Each structure stands twice: as C-alpha cells, then as structure tokens.
C-alpha cells in the first residue's frame, strides 16, 4: 500500500483536533499556546502534503514557510501577553482572566 495523500491528511487532522482540544481544555496559558502550535502544525502538514501529491508545487512549501515564521512571531507575542498576565494576576490560570465578562 503506498502512502497516499489521505494518510498525510489524516495526520494533519489529528494534529489539528488535538490542538483544538488542547486549547479548549488547558487552564495553563502556555498549554493553550501549545495547542495553537499544534493547530498550525497540522495546517503545515496539510500544505506540504498537497504540495507533494498535487500540482500545487513549491507554493505549498513556501506557504508553510510563512506559516512557520508567523507562528513564531505569534508565539512571541502571546508569550509576552501571558507573562504580562502572570505579572498582574500572579497566576497562569486563564480561568482567572475573566474581567471582560458580562
């Protein structure tokens, strides 16, 4: 059985879903960030798989490069926010950050 596109897409799906679940369940801010990374990686896997198995070509890989770069930037900023949150609330529990409720 050859490795087909669908297989890679399945892997990407798993990564994506676990990223979502991670975002939805983790109370630690860093945990949420990890979920974000997982989601982005799932998307990357999709992109590169398509670039290999379809006439998408090198465009898929360039796009995934961009995704990686932007994910890094976003992680930096999110971390800055999380640290700021931690400084203000003395805890990293995101459930404590509900001042915007109501």
């Amino acid at each position: 059985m050859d490795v087909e596109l669908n297989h890679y897409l399945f892997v990407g799906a798993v990564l994506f879903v676990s990223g979502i679940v991670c975002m939805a369940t983790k109370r630690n801010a860093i945990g949420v960030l990890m979920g974000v990374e997982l989601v982005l990686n799932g998307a990357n896997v999709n992109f590169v798989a398509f670039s290999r198995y379809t006439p998408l070509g090198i465009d898929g890989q360039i796009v995934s490069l961009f995704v990686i770069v932007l994910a890094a930037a976003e992680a930096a900023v999110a971390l800055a926010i999380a640290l700021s949150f931690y400084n203000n609330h003395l805890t990293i529990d995101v459930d404590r950050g509900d001042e915007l409720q109501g």
Partner: protein
Amino acid sequence: MTGERFLFLLFALATCGGALGVVISQNVVRMAFSLVIALGSTSGLFFLLHADFVAATQLLIYVGGTLVLLIFGIMLTASGPYVRIKTSPADLFLAAGVGFLVLFMIVGTVMDVDWEQASIKLTGRAIAEKPIGYNELGQGNTARTIALGLIGSRPDKDLGQPAEKGLSTGYLLPFEIVSVHLLVVLIGAAYLARARRRVDSSADS
C-alpha cells in the same frame, strides 16, 4: 513494507502520540516534552514529503526557537511545585466529544474527495503530471527554488514556457510584509513584556 511506508508509520505515530500526549498530560513540562516529540516527528514527515528546506526550517525554528520560547515561558510562570491546575471532568468530556466530532468531520470530508477529479477541475492537470520544474530526482533540492520564489522569480513555473505566457508572480511582496511584520512583533513583544514592578498578592495600588 517499503522503507517509505515504515518511516511514515513511525513518524505519524510519533506525531499523533506526541499530540495526544500534549492533550492528555497534566503537567505542563510534560506537555512541552510531548510537543517537542510531535514537532520533531512532523519535521520527519516533511522530509518524507520531499520538503527538505521546510523540514529543516521546522526543526530550526519551530523546535529550536518557538518551543524553547515556550519552555522559557513555562519556567518564568511556574507556580509552586505542588499546585496543580486541573480542568473539570465535564470540560474534558465536552472537549473530547467536540474533538471527535471535528475529527470525524474532517476525515469524512477527506475520504469523500476524489483528488483526481478535483485536480483536473482546479488546475486542468492530472495529479500524475507533476508540476513543471518539479525536480523529482533532486530530493533535498528545494532550497534554491524556494529562495528564488521568495525573491520573486519562479523558474519552476516559467522556465521553458513560451514567452507570451508572461512571468508568474513570486512571493517577494509577502516576504517583505512578513519582514516588517516580524519587526513589529519584535518591538511589540519587547514592549509588552517590559520590566514592570511585580504586583504583590496583597497589593494596595
């Protein structure tokens, strides 16, 4: 079982296991470790997909940069050794249910699509026809093409084409934008995380 298939299974299982490990583990450090495994395995998948530059970039930047950053963050925001933050089981159950649903949704969709027909419809070419310029034997030789594409020229598309077709667009503009973006993020993150007096738990400000 060919080597490709074996490697694929290996890397896929590692990725999925790492991802699941991130989800399941309660300790954030363990989560980080699982994430390292997941992202590393993803890089391996990339190598299998003939995306050598991307895989390398993944290892370098994602694993070596972003994850390290995350670990820094973990260490900076560490709570006491005996404080555990747990999610309620209801939330876990609900999240798991939703997750499975989404998974089924995606997988079901993926299974349903006829990639051959979709390719012909979208691009006019069959899947089997590899894109022009795609260097099949040059595994691990995508760096040059990517670099040229980022500068703005696309030899993989334009080389050998008739002159009337014109030049394809490159990715110069997004490259520049992302560069500026990174600058902005740099400054912003630096500002956001500037040194501030730490608020005491019994602060009276």
